[in-house]
């Protein structure tokens, strides 16, 4: 892959502690040919399985998560024909109502944008090595998800 193209892909995938701006990301990836953008933002809920959540902590296997997110982005662009996909996922300690992650898809039309966004989210939940730990009034619990894996 050419270096400039590789750099572009790296910029689209971010795993970081700090908050992010939805507008900034959309401004960065939208082009003149974009006809539709679809974004998903995951947010820390105040309750989980009936328990009141005080905060969550997110742990990540960073090197592998970066590769997996890049693969998922590439698969979605290829499968759905969308123009670009940015994925941001935070880690560390987050309070209720804080943003956890964002998927931003740009495409010519809405159908493929929605489908690509859904695909990316479901794949993240299946195979990207990120884990949430919930600190609730009833104790601390690791969230365990479904799993399915591919490279």
């Amino acid at each position: 892959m050419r270096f400039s193209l590789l750099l572009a892909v790296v910029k689209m995938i971010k795993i970081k502690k700090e908050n992010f701006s939805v507008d900034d990301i959309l401004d960065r990836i939208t082009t003149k040919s974009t006809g539709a953008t679809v974004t998903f933002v995951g947010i820390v809920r105040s309750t989980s399985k009936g328990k009141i959540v005080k905060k969550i902590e997110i742990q990540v296997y960073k090197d592998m998560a970066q590769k997996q997110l890049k693969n998922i982005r590439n698969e979605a662009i290829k499968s759905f024909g969308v123009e670009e996909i940015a994925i941001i996922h935070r880690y560390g300690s987050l309070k209720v109502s804080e943003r956890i992650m964002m998927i931003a898809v740009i495409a010519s039309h809405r159908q493929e944008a929605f489908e690509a966004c859904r695909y990316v989210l479901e794949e993240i939940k299946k195979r990207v090595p990120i884990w949430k730990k919930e600190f609730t009034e009833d104790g601390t619990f690791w969230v365990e998800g479904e799993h399915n894996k591919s490279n």
Partner: protein
Amino acid sequence: MKINLRFFAYFQEIIGAKHNEIIIPEDSTLEALLTRLKKEFKFLKNKDHLLVAVNGKYVDSSVLLKEGDEVALFPPVSGG
């Protein structure tokens, strides 16, 4: 040969470490390593709750390990 182990999520709490090293025979498969680890850490025997990656990739357990490989063990993921 030396293999670098990494553990994530509640595996760290049960095992009491985030990482460790293990010496295994040359030409060992991932399956052989897991068999050995499951004897030491019995909770790993529940395969519905164990995911494994070698050098940051999901691989088949028949893969041959090499000196210095990083093998990560973790429960089903919960990002997103």
